């Protein structure tokens, strides 16, 4: 059976403080630190879009809250104070694209 997924739009604050890839790595580290290697693997966390200060990540539906919590606890990336704001959670990539196209910068 196909696994259900969720797409999270995460905004890096302040914008331009770190690039999307580094923010995603920090998120992955946070998930690993909080839930372990098994937690990270079962979250099936992937970077879908990493340009700009808004990144889109994909995760397994039943692990969504764990990923949101892991993003909440990220406070530093590369020695810079940052916050990862989860601005949107969606079940389809199409909705995420629609949300991003509507700007909400």
């Amino acid at each position, binding site marked *: 059976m196909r696994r259900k997924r969720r797409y999270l739009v995460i905004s890096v*604050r302040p914008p331009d403080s770190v690039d999307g890839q580094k923010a995603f790595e920090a998120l992955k580290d946070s998930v690993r630190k*909080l839930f372990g290697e098994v937690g990270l693997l079962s979250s099936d966390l992937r970077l879908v879009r990493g340009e700009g200060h808004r990144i889109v990540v994909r995760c397994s539906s039943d692990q969504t*809250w*764990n990923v*949101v*919590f892991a993003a*909440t*606890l990220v*406070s530093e990336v590369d020695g810079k104070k940052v916050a990862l704001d*989860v601005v949107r959670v969606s079940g389809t990539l199409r909705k995420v694209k629609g949300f991003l196209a509507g700007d909400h910068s």
Partner: protein
Amino acid sequence: MRPYADIWWRPTSPDLLREMLVLAREMGYRAVAVEGDLTGAPSVEGVEVLRRVTLRPKDVGQLYSQLSRLRWRYHVVSVIPPSREVAMAALRDNRVDTVVMLGDEPIPVDHHVAEVARAAVEVPLSRLLEEPERSLSWLLRSARWFRRGRVRVTVSSGACGPIELRRPVQLASVLIVAGVEPEVARRAVSDLPYNVMRENSLRLAGLMDPSGVWEVTER
């Protein structure tokens, strides 16, 4: 739409407060409680700013004297107890709005606490950011009482600046990962803190008496 509220901010300057308020409006907060001097505090349309005091009494006697002196000068009164004895006294006192059990020495929530608690237990995110392991350990042990609804719980940011602010859904996630039902967690960052602030505003304005009864005047 839910009235999201953050019950603890502690900005160090009016400029920081302004930045935080603009951000809070974007994030969907409707009310915030700020610790510290609010003279000349900026206002941002759509976000209500209320006064909060955080008491750090050494013993029960000092707690009571601080409460009798300060209760009706602030919209939100919180207590960070140094010991279990003070925590129990604060939890059962109806002049206290929230008790931060997750202080430097976390005090576990157990069935004794659940028996007497009238005030809500406050979980500040800032403590989780400072000391994640210790704080999470406390949270996981205490969550069963929040789950059962025996003890009211609220999550605040405890933010000193904009970088420490998080969206309401992220504050709620703190409780959800500990096993609290999503609806209870959402109420912990919306209805519960918002109603505490709203009712205390009415009391301070003389529209409600301290026991929660509306003052009605004939025209």
